[in-house]
């Protein structure tokens, strides 16, 4: 029982990271109808930015954190202009191929600069964690969970109660109509990329002390986050979050009770099962193409 509670805590913590990245996936998908296959690299790049500022340059942790996130916002702009924007009128296939190219480019550029050895990033807190009854609560996991909850609330408030959020929603639902109403569609897509890059970056920075900072982390996180969006249902924000947390729990228990080397395979199995039996996800609805 104690072990189960412990695993549950860890699962939720790691799942929260998947949920954050999945959220970024869904936001870009809703705005552009394209899955960004470099979403995981957003996390990887941010984690390496943290390594540059906090480890290599020895800046204070909070300052490195702010500068890294600001860097990610800028990165979102560059990514949109360099990868998505020139292809926005093409079909989805060239766009996803371009995002895959971007993913390969980013991961291997970092590899060329930093080499294959994983980097270590300290956690935010001095105290490693607290013992609560039978469960040991790691402080970094607590932080991840707290930030995720805060972001989910913020996200809800932003999209439902601000003008900008409503404009973004309008853009994702009907671009033509949105532009007729005077909303700048490319502006909204730009904001989406910035927001999504910051979200992905945040996830990367938060998870970095738990995992190692490696060039593979982007691809691994992206795969999990994608599986999370399928579990939750594509295009549904709540679904992405619940899917992410569910996946984190499944994976943690799988690693503990089934097999450690194949830990990453569970996400794939869940993905395939959902695709075969419930492709619309838990919450999603399928939309048919009209003639």
């Amino acid at each position, binding site marked *: 029982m104690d072990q189960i509670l412990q695993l549950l805590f860890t699962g939720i913590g790691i799942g929260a990271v998947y949920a954050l990245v999945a959220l970024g996936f869904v936001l870009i998908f809703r705005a552009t109808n394209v899955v960004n*296959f470099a979403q995981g690299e957003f996390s990887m790049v941010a984690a390496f930015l943290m390594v540059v500022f906090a480890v290599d340059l020895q800046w204070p942790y909070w300052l490195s954190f702010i500068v890294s996130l600001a860097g990610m916002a800028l990165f979102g702009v560059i990514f949109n202009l360099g*990868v998505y924007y*020139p292809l926005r009128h093409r079909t989805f296939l060239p766009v996803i191929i371009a995002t*895959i190219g971007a993913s390969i480019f980013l991961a291997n550029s970092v590899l060329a600069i930093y080499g294959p050895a994983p980097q270590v990033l300290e956690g935010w807190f001095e105290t490693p964690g607290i013992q609560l009854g039978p469960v040991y609560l790691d402080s970094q996991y607590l932080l991840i969970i707290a930030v995720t909850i805060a972001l989910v609330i913020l996200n809800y408030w932003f999209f439902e109660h601000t003008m900008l959020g409503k404009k973004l929603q309008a853009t994702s639902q009907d671009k033509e109509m949105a532009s007729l109403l005077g909303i700048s569609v490319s502006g909204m897509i730009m904001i989406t990329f910035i927001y999504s890059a910051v979200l992905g970056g945040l996830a990367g920075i938060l998870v970095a002390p738990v995992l190692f900072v490696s*060039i593979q982390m982007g691809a691994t996180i992206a795969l999990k986050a994608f599986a999370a969006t399928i579990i939750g249902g594509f295009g549904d924000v709540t679904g992405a979050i619940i899917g992410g947390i569910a996946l984190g729990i499944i994976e943690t228990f799988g690693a503990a009770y089934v097999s450690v080397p194949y830990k990453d395979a569970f996400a794939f199995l869940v*993905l395939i099962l959902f695709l075969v039996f419930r492709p619309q996800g838990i919450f999603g609805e399928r939309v048919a193409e009209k*003639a």
Partner: protein
Amino acid sequence: MTAKTQDAKAQDLPAAAPVHSTPLLLRHLPYFIVAAIAVFAAATMSFDGYVLNILMQATTFAVAVFGLTVVLGLCGQINLAQAAFFGLGAYVVGLGTTDYQINFWICLIGGSLVALLAGALLGMSTLKLGGHYLAMVTISFQQILTLVIINAIWLTHGPDGISKIGRPALFQSQQSFLALCVAVLALVGYLVWHLPDTRIGRAMRAVRDNELAAGVAGIDIFRTKVLAFALSALLGGLGGGLFAGGFSYVSPDQFSFAESIVFLTMALLGGVGSPIGAVIGTGLLILIPEWLRFLKSIPGLYLAIYGLFVILIVRFMPDGIWGFVQDMLTRWCTKRPAAMTSPALQLVPAKTGGDMVLEVTGLSKHFGGLKAVDKVDIAVRRGGVHALIGPNGSGKTTTLNMLSGLYKVTSGKIMLDGTDVTDMPPHQRTAAGLGRTFQNIRLFRSMTALENVVIGAERPGNTLTGNGGQDALTERALSALTFVGLGPRANELVSSFSYGHQRLIEIARALAGNPTLLLLDEPAAGLNSTEKLELHDLLKRIAAQGLTILIIDHDMTLVREAAQHITVLNFGKRIADGESLAVLQHPDVISAYLGTE
């Protein structure tokens, strides 16, 4: 230029039959001679070990890249696990010839089949869904396979890899084995080169260009995609099996996700539309890193450059190097398409049911609480033109989409010529005798007018194409195009036709399949008045051959003049039905269109 003057012009030109007089293999003899010379050169020229290795890598990789030509170039489906399929083939050959001492040929075939099976299963799980899923699932499969190869040490030898892999008796030396690989490459290249002109190849292109129209033209979309994907995996496995034999050693890192990206870059760089592009891309991406060796000294650098390449190619050279060259060639030496003649189009609609070709009873479609179509009955009598009309939002298009199978019905029954088609997917309804056109034209944009119509002629159940051979199909398609007045322009790409003519090509595509019932969705929309007159004339000529037409249109002039029978919908319900003049004077119809006082 009107269709009639074009017809006259075509008659002035000397007649040339569309049938090719020389047998296929004879016409392609030059290819086989060149291939034989290449094989001979590979077998006899003296290479040093370094060159031999590069050639071996290029040949075996090219076979795998051909797989991407099929799945990505021809069918428009992404495969990011080609290295995994390559690895499956390589490991079956590697383990089979060493640990299990099985004959090389059996291992090679076995490896290809394992890859084929994996590809088919993977495709079946995902290809009903959109392309994003396929991309992610193939990436996942790639990563899982790598995990298994590294961790299942009892089976795969783990990170150590497999050495001393065997070769077949006749090809023991590395050079003779290279000659074998070149021969396989030439053969596979030949098949892939001709695939686009076969029935299944055309189906793949149709699916890539326009899935919806492909389904309505009678193509089983899902089966076509799975086939393309499985074929791609098969070629991956074959290439991998040869690779294992050629190098006698394999290790897990040779089949990682990075290698899948290398394959993808090779295909994109050379041009994904043709096997020539695949060879160019493979050759370049194997040679460039050899020339620029410093790229390999920093880990990650050359893959980073590949990633950048991918972005740049997609943006600036979407058809790759070969596509670019081809474009130049066609610009410099435009071949004047040969004039062709064909017999007049025959339409022999099937008659298996009773007097009614189409009987719809109690048809309903509800979207949540909205009753878009509510308990509608339509009976279309054999022969003649029946019109379905109604103001905007009356449920016409929803009805049509249920008739052609794009929407599932909420309730009701659709009988087509005595067959219950209510629960059939679009391609099966087409096979049952339905032909349709779309309001917003859906042609296969990368194909010529003739190729578009050939796909229509390939409708399963079409009895008028003889043995279904290439010549019979071409002849049938040409007849249909000539019937709508576009015969002389058969070999032009559809994108070069005007809007009105594209509509005619769509009608020709449906006619070529010799349907039992022709559904026309707002055929007059967007046409000018001359084109409308021509359309009216065309409808008369079609009806004269006994083909029943169900037309949906706003254009009252066309409907009044062409249709003998009219059904009127409003707010999802049938408000009038009967002989056309009587219906048009019906007070409910007048009030639906003009409002009441």
